[in-house]
């Protein structure tokens, strides 16, 4: 059965930055984009991944003993995983006493997730909050997502979907019928740069945004603002022009200033975070972004 179920890599309670009110955010694993600044590198792969935090490791060697594939090796720098041998079976994480080794990604049934969601209803009720489906890219799991959205709808819960917009237009339109708010990410208007920094073309994303707007969906555009990458006037002017011309209810924009705290997470996956071309945007740049939007009659803000 597990093949039809998506992996979830995090469920966040008291989520207050992903839509209105107090929310529960469910993070799907797997993303068609590969943004260089990604804050959640474990969200990219569809597969279960092993995370290793050296500072937590007490070097007890239990994982080395327990691994059925002899993939865990004890070295001076702690535990090293032989990627060739590792079957990501999770035995090492099970025996690890200190959470130094953890598996990212777990299967949940719709019923199981609804149980978790229902526990949070008192907080939604008091705050006008609800559930946010994020990722990774939730669109990669449309049938499952639709089931969840429908179940939430039956309970009259507010539903938000946080998407890169990179997916089948028909899926997105179907999801829109079961969704109260889209948190739609826009990154770069230049197709070439978009391809360079995210790995995919942006035409589908822009078409999908148009399709959603045409369908009358409520949309909050979220822009990760990265100095040196997408905070230039040209990109922001193009973005504002595009958004201002969308049909339907006018979306709001939210600029999320880039921060480099995710550099912590990459080594856990044995990866390197290349942020050489990126920097934290200054106050002036953030203000300029907001002002450009305002000049196009758009309501923008700085989030996070």
């Amino acid at each position: 059965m597990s093949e039809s179920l998506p992996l979830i890599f995090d469920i966040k309670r008291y989520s207050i930055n992903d839509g209105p009110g107090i929310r529960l955010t469910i993070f799907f694993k797997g993303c068609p984009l590969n943004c260089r600044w990604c804050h959640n590198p474990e969200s990219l792969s569809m597969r279960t991944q092993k995370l290793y935090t050296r500072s937590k490791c007490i070097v007890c060697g239990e994982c080395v003993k327990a691994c059925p594939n002899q993939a865990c090796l004890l070295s001076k720098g702690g535990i090293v995983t032989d990627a060739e041998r590792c079957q990501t079976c999770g035995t090492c994480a099970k025996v690890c006493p200190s959470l130094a080794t953890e598996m990212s990604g777990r299967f949940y049934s719709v019923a199981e997730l609804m149980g978790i969601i229902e526990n949070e209803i008192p907080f939604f009720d008091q705050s006008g909050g609800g559930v946010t489906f994020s990722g990774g890219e939730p669109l990669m799991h449309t049938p499952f997502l639709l089931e969840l959205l429908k179940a939430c709808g039956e309970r009259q819960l507010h539903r938000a979907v946080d998407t890169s917009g990179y997916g089948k237009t028909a899926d997105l339109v179907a999801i829109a019928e079961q969704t109260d708010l889209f948190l739609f990410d826009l990154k770069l208007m230049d197709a070439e740069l978009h391809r360079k920094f995210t790995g995919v073309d942006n035409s589908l994303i822009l078409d999908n945004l148009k399709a959603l707007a045409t369908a009358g969906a409520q949309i909050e555009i979220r822009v990760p603002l990265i100095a040196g990458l997408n905070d230039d006037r040209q990109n922001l002017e193009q973005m504002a022009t595009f958004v201002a011309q969308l049909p339907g209810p006018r979306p709001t924009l939210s600029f999320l200033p880039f921060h480099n705290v995710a550099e912590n997470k990459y080594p856990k996956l044995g990866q390197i975070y290349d942020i050489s071309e990126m920097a934290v945007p200054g106050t002036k740049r953030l203000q300029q972004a907001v002002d450009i939007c305002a000049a196009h009659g758009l309501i923008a803000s700085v989030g996070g």
Partner: protein
Amino acid sequence: METTERLKIDPQRKAAAEGNFYPELNSSLGPGMNPRIQRLRKLSVETEPSLSIERALHETAFYRENYGKYSIPVLRALNFLDHCQKKTLYIGADELIVAERGPRPKAVPTFPELTCHSVEDFHVLNTRDQQRYTISAEDIETYAREVIPYWQGKTMRERILNHVPQEWQAAYEAGLFTEFMEQRAPGHTALDGQIYRKGMLDFKAQITTEIAALDYLNDPEATDKFEELKAMDISCDAVILFAERHADLAEEMAAKETDPQRVVELERIAAVCRRVPAHKPETFHEAIQMYWFVHLGTITELNGWDAMNPGHFDQHLTPFYAKEIAAGSLSREQAKELLCCFWIKVNNHPAPPKVGITARESGTYNDFTNINIGGITGEGRNGVSEVSYLMLEVIEELHVLQPGSSVHISSKTPERFLNAACKVIRQGHGYPSIFNPDVYTVELMRQGKSLRDAREGGCSGCIEVGAFGKEAYVLTGYLNVPKVLEMTLNNGIDPVTGKQAGMASGDPLGFKNYTELYAAFRRQLNYIVETKVRVSNYIDRMFAKYAPAPFLSVVIEDCISKGKDYYDGGPRYNTNYIQCTGLGTTTDSLAALKKHVFEDQTFGLDQLLAAVANNFEGEEFLRQTILNKTPFFGNDDDFADEIALQVYADLLEAIDGKPNVKGESFHLNMLSTTCHIYFGKVMGATPNGRFAGKSISDGTSPSHGADTHGPSAVIRSLTKLDHTMSGGTLLNQRFLPSLLKRDEDIARLGQLVRSYFTLGGHHIQFNIIDTATLKAAQESPEDYRDLLVRMAGYSDYFNDMNADLQQEVIERTENEAF
């Protein structure tokens, strides 16, 4: 999130940014709405607490002269009158609200009739690093000559400690419980609105009527009642006299004063002191001064725990405020200035010094006057008024240690008030704490209070609730619940000292399953509670007989009509609380035993107990497994939460309904104040992975760092407990300022509170993390596993970050501090 029109990247809110806050004055004097308040605050904050031996000298001389001539209540009242006659008065420059317990601000008297400090005690108090009280060598010498020889062997402390059973002594010394009354008198008293409707002359008239109605032929207690009522009458005179002396002094000072504005003020002070407390107050100023005289009277007469408390002070002051604002005789500014004066007055009164175990358990200058703000009225209506908002402004502007404050948020409380309170909380001074009147009204009614009396109740001190102005709800001491488990796992022997401290509840290695182990814990618990209750009842009788409080009895309802003292069942309601500490540590320890030993059999019981006995030395694998692979309380995990429910039910079973000596009962309370630190120090390691000597969990909060699923999960766990069965639960939550940056975040915090209260929570308090805490978290990460750093699109636990990122978060926090 802010809109284009008012984008502010800098989240810092200056005090003047909204509401009626004052611009920060460029002054070296520090915070305050005007130079007067700045000067008064500066003096109060900067004056070092000192000891005054004046009261002890008066009292000793009086006792030498008069002991044996009068009944005990009358002797106590005359002693109080004598001190009020002779006491050094103080009216400071700038003051509008006057009178001090000591001869000057922050000078604390001693109460040798309760506990007589030795010369050695004074040297310790004079030199210890924390909670120092200065005293001159000359005063120590005088004390040694005049005071100590008379009281030796006659104090309440000796009366108690010299007569307790050996089992009690052993358990007490082991730190299984504390005893509040070994150095201070029963207290935690809060007042209702009576003193704003009646002056001391009205109380005296009522006393006269009761005396006239005594039936000496048919009522066997008539003579005792007469003595008590006579004592109450004398104590009213004492307080009137005390006020009149201040009026005289103010007039004298006015005659010599050259500043015409100050002359007017001093004349007003004199007029106020002539009216109150003899008569009921007519103005806002008089109402505050009325309370202050009553406050001082009760804390001078005796040294009750938690000083005294005005209760729902905003509700009591509101009629005076409304009347005067309408008449134009008072402005909002003037009202606020008077409140500031009052706040500073309370801050001038540090708790009298404690020694020994009690000092270890409650080592603070804070005397826990807790101003209740908001809430509901006796009629069940919303109690928030403009005075409530004024008080929030005062708290935000002054940030002084005392008085403590709490906001009371019922379903009827307006959102605006909750938001205003949350903004003060964001400042990170720890106050105000937040209470739920909808729940504590039920708690109080379950204990037998009428609906109206319950609604007029609230919290005093820390989180304990009572019927204000009508109840003696005596906190008898803290119970170290994790230590009870430690006794169970050591067959009654204290592993720290090797002495027998609990009962022999069975060889732990003989427990075949969790049920047997838990049954032994329950036996141990009942034994410890019974040991404590027995002595508590004895102490209650000693206070009733030898240390009555006739003045306090005047202002607590039904004492006059019953002709009985506050300590002798005079109040309408009489409760004894036992405060249980460490639910989280106990639950998590039991969860570790249940899961790893009895269910998964990862470790043998012998192995786990040996590791605990050795403070986990060489057992890092075992300890890490327990820390990371055990369901702990506070994560909305039924495995742990069911254990917490069971422990809570058994605490209730052991305590609730045990008869006290006043014909009423003991009830359960779940507070800890700072006692969880002392309790941790007297304990070895615990099966939840906690090292020896470290703090146990506070109140009903999860163990430090055990809650890793965020505040909503903590709330879900906490509200599986039925709070209405207790007299108070306590939940401390840590928040990083980054979670409270924007106005919406403040709204979310309020909604979190509403959610908790809708689900039945009693109290919640937010500690806004400062950089010092983050640095502490770097030092001992295990205690801070709950620290979640959150930014848009990203969140991580502080502990999981590398040192550089932690440093960045620390710097951000510094910038974001409010």
